[in-house]
């Protein structure tokens, strides 16, 4: 069963690092709140397995002025799509 992982703290936390050690193929990542800053981590994002879709919440990206800086792999989504992604995956795992 696949999971949608939400990450809600900045890279100053170890949330994403730890998440990536237990993530499964076919899971997805969604950066929300201060997690939005991960969307600009060029080095780290390049290492994430290609079977894992990477999203960031548009509202949080816009508020923080990150739109022009985000990595190619990151797709901006709104809350409607956040809800849809929650349905497409079998569960949601929140990292906070």
């Amino acid at each position, binding site marked *: 069963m696949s999971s949608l992982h939400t990450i809600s703290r900045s890279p100053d936390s170890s949330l994403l690092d730890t998440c990536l050690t237990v993530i499964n193929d076919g899971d997805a990542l969604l950066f929300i709140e201060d997690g939005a800053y991960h969307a600009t981590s060029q080095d780290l994002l390049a290492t994430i397995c290609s079977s894992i879709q990477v999203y960031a919440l548009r*509202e949080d990206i816009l508020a923080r002025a990150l739109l022009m800086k985000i990595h190619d792999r990151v797709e901006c989504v709104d*809350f409607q799509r956040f809800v849809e992604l929650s349905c497409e995956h079998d569960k*949601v795992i929140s990292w906070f």
Partner: protein
Amino acid sequence: MKFSIVIYAAPYSSESAASALRFAQSALAQGHELYRLFFFGDGVHNASKLSVVAQDESNLQQQWHELIQEHNLDSVICVSSAIKRGIVDQSEADRYDLGVASAYSTSEIAGLGQLIDAAMHSDRLVNFG
């Protein structure tokens, strides 16, 4: 789909309670069912009806209240988290002689069993903290 949402964060000190609210609004707007809201830990502060907010700011507690009322949602405040934080309903206010309830009556104060029940009976349980 049947969603339940768990809120661990107090309003204002973090963005999480606001994220949870917007997720709830969005799920309902898309026709999903909200089986239960569960306020836990500092999250119980979202149920305070004593909040007063400046005109240019949004009143999160009131928005939760209005959402719950409008959609007739099942909303639970964890009793063990709530009463030590001063979030009490009328019956507790009476029992402990506190004068008045601080919690909106649109939420019910109950135990953690309601959270596990939500985990069992929802298709998706989403945590915000």
